[in-house]
């Protein structure tokens, strides 16, 4: 690899991390559904497992709009990124810790996330976003007593 290629790889790793950081920030309540969806490629996919799979910006935005009504407050603590860049393609995994107010009850959320991205027109776009929900527990119970609260209920 040339020195320029090596510098580019470092820069793109940071650029991808910045896009993912922006994703998390748009979800800190109030959820900015339009800004969140705009970070996806047009045919991007968001796979939330039991909470559904959403394809395309419109469907993604609509789902996030729905979250706004259920989650009056939350913070997304995203870090522990492992990003691999290969030319105009990238894959990433990271850890997320969340502190939502779900229907009037404080919760702790423990998640891991994954994404694929593509660079088009000098910008990185999310082509897929996924997550593994390890726990979403009422604050006064913890993840052993109640591992998951249904967030869409």
């Amino acid at each position, binding site marked *: 690899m040339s020195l320029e290629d090596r*510098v580019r790889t470092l820069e793109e790793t*940071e650029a991808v991390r910045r896009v993912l*950081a922006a994703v998390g920030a748009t979800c800190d309540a109030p959820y900015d559904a339009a800004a969140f969806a705009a970070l996806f490629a047009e045919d991007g996919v968001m796979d939330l497992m039991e909470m559904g799979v959403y394809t395309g910006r419109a469907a993604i935005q609509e789902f996030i709009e729905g979250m706004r009504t259920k989650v009056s407050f939350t913070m997304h603590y995203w*870090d522990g990124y492992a990003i691999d860049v290969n030319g105009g393609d990238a894959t990433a995994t990271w850890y997320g810790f969340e502190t939502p107010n779900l229907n009037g009850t404080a919760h702790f959320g423990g998640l891991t996330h994954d994404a694929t991205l593509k660079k088009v027109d000098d910008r990185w776009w999310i082509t897929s976003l996924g997550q593994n929900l390890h726990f979403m527990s009422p604050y006064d119970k913890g993840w052993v007593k109640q591992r998951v609260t249904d967030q869409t209920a």
Partner: protein
Amino acid sequence: MAELEERVQRLEAIEAIRRLKIKYAQLCDNNYDPLGLTALFTKDAVWDGGGLGRYEGHDEIRGFWEVASKSFTFALHYMIGHTIDVDPPFTVALGHWYIWEPATVNGRAVFLAATYNDMYEKVGDDWFFKQVKANLNFFTPYEDGWVKTPVMKTA
């Protein structure tokens, strides 16, 4: 290649500023070392914590740290999810961070959650804080949580 040199400088600046913030965290967690922390700030720096107070210049900033450890007897400053913006000539930069902070305040376990908007300045070879603005999300006793008690009274 001047351009490649500049691109490397930007990456180095991001890493140096990231380290500065972690050093700040480590000094806070070491009983808010007042001299160590103050040395990370420019002479005209401002630390603005909203309800936690606003301090300008080394004397006021050092005074704040001297008092902090009397009520915050334990803390872990988990600095998370940073974005750092720096451009040529790499003498000023902006940063945004999340902080998740378990702490013991006046004998009570608490969770403090906030975000930071920082301004950094390079003096000589080193980066310093020019402005730290902390935006509190919640400050809650362990037993309550942030819905029951979003911001506790410390008196």
